[in-house]
């Protein structure tokens, strides 16, 4: 009795009991479609969260100076020391030192009073001295004029780029580009206005639309009169290389500052860690939730197969008895029922994937939520469907194989 013969017998039985087979297949089909779609929905949600976080710059590390101790013995908090230098920033920007770092923007910032040349409005906000790299590191752009460039830094140019909120507070309706703004007594020409990032302040802790960008050299030498940096912004190549970028920056700065014990570091490096971990935990919760739902639908589908196969065994007691009377060994009967169950699983799985593909194409239009169909989930779903057929077919098949031929033949 070959497997091929068994398969033929099994397929014949599936065809001979069309309605029952169709109902079983329907159960598995819906279960598998639900699994593939929920996995796709989870994937889509993760992709969306990831892209939202990426737009905020998750690849970003912030190097801050360490704590300092004043001459009177009071320790001041992190960020108060003057330990970060432009040399540090240049070292981190070197590809040979830190291959996982894509861009570095040194920042010297301070809160300053501003006065505009048109309305003589005054406004106090953060003034950031930095370089051209800030624009890409911060993932920002200008809506008017231009951003500061390397030439401005080299020239100690008296130029400034305003945040959109800052621009409207000072110039209220007048085109700010080309006007002059007075920063702590230093007149600067406005060369551009940043794009608006709206409510990003909630995640970054400060209003990103209200700030002034000036060339780093202008800030350190003409406005603040201090060369040390407030922070160094480091952009990793990708979110995946964030931790290696962290380690490279950490190691390089420890070496530059000649610190042998990492716990004595005069700087600290932070990432948008809270954001990342929050999103990760949200993703995980979502995955567990969806996985649970998917698992339950699979279980229901599997119990459906078992139920139908048990009904099938009961219904076909006479057939089983006859086959055994005619010389079918128990192993053949078992194989026949197992194959029937797995064929039902396979067909149900394939149709379920088809339904999921259709759902992936149509559902997002209705619910306005992206669904990402993954090939792995699809192949896995079909494999699981067949496995369900086999696993939940074992018990009915064993029962069928154990039937005594006389009892089976006697039953009416």
């Amino acid at each position, binding site marked *: *009795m070959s497997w091929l013969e068994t398969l033929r017998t099994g397929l*014949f039985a599936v065809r001979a009991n069309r309605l029952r087979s169709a109902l079983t297949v329907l159960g598995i089909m819906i279960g598998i479609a639900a699994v593939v779609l929920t996995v796709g929905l989870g994937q889509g949600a993760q992709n969306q969260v990831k892209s939202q976080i990426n737009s905020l710059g998750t690849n970003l590390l912030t190097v801050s100076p360490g704590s300092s101790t004043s001459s009177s013995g009071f320790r001041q908090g992190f960020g108060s020391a003057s330990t970060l230098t432009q040399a540090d920033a240049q070292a981190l920007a070197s590809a040979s030192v830190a291959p996982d770092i894509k861009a570095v923007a040194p920042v010297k910032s301070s809160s300053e009073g501003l006065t505009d040349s048109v309305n003589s409005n005054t406004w106090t906000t953060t003034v950031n001295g930095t370089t051209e790299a800030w624009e890409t590191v911060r993932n920002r752009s200008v809506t008017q004029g231009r951003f500061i460039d390397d030439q401005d830094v080299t020239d100690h140019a008296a130029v400034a780029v305003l945040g959109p909120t800052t621009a409207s507070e000072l110039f209220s309706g007048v085109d700010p580009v080309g006007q002059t703004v007075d920063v702590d007594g230093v007149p600067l020409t406005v060369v551009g206005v940043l794009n608006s990032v709206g409510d990003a302040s909630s995640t970054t802790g400060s209003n990103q639309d209200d700030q002034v960008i000036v060339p780093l050299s202008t800030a350190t030498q003409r406005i603040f009169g201090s060369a040390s940096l407030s922070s160094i912004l480091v952009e990793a190549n990708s979110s995946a290389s964030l931790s290696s970028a962290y380690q490279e920056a950490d190691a390089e700065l420890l070496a530059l500052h000649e610190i042998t014990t990492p716990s004595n570091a005069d700087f600290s490096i932070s990432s948008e860690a809270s954001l990342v971990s929050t999103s990760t935990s949200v993703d995980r919760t979502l995955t567990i939730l969806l996985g649970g739902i998917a698992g339950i639908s699979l279980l229901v589908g599997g119990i459906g197969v078992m139920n139908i196969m048990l009904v099938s065994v009961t219904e076909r007691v006479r057939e089983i008895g006859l*086959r055994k*009377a005619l*010389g079918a060994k128990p192993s053949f009967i078992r194989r026949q029922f197992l194959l029937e169950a797995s064929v039902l699983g396979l067909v149900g799985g394939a149709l379920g994937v088809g339904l999921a593909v259709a759902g992936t194409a149509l559902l997002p239009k209705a619910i306005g939520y992206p669904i990402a169909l993954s090939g792995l989930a699809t192949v896995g779903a079909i494999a699981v469907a067949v496995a369900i057929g086999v696993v939940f077919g074992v018990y009915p098949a064993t029962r069928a194989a154990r039937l005594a031929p006389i009892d089976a033949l006697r039953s009416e």
Partner: protein
Amino acid sequence: MTAVIKLDGVTKVYRTGSIAVAALRGVSFAIDPGEYVSIVGPSGSGKSTLMHILGCLDVPTSGRYWLGGDNVSRMDEIDLAEVRNRQIGFVFQQFNLLPSLPAWRNVELPLIYAGAGRAERRRRSIEALERVGLGSRIDHRPGELSGGQQQRVAVARALVADPALILADEPTGALDSHSAREVMNLFNELHHAGRTIVMITHDDEVAGAADRTIRIRDGLIWPATEAA
């Protein structure tokens, strides 16, 4: 000449909880090749039990049973399946055809379990159907055939694997008198062609067609002189 069937002190006791019922209480007889034997008895006499044991569908509680020279009374389920497949052709009262399969597919079933190839199965199935006069009905499903024709398909199925013994259990019980006569004529033909046939029935008229009649009552051969 070796007997096709030899029973020696066969008993069968069914236990339901604490109650034991002896359906066979020591049955011994032999059937030679080419014999046409009927086994007759009223219901409750133990003849169904005897039929199940003869058909290797059940094993005796004690005693020995040789079929074609093999002691089958102590075989396991797997060997019994093999014996049923090769040595016995069953004809049942209710035909027991699979309704979804055409006639020749029903007939080929024993050959599938015997491991015969596709082409051989089809050829032998068609030969067997021609043998019972249904050569023109090979693709008909059981539902498209009369009762007599269905029983003849069942006889073809019993013949197809060329067994040592044809075991018929009330083969005319579900048929009208005309179809019953048809089927009985078929058994006569098979007998004349040299087949060994054992027919279980409660109908003396049907039993009279056989060469020899074994009567069973209360689990014993009756009269006792019939015992081999």
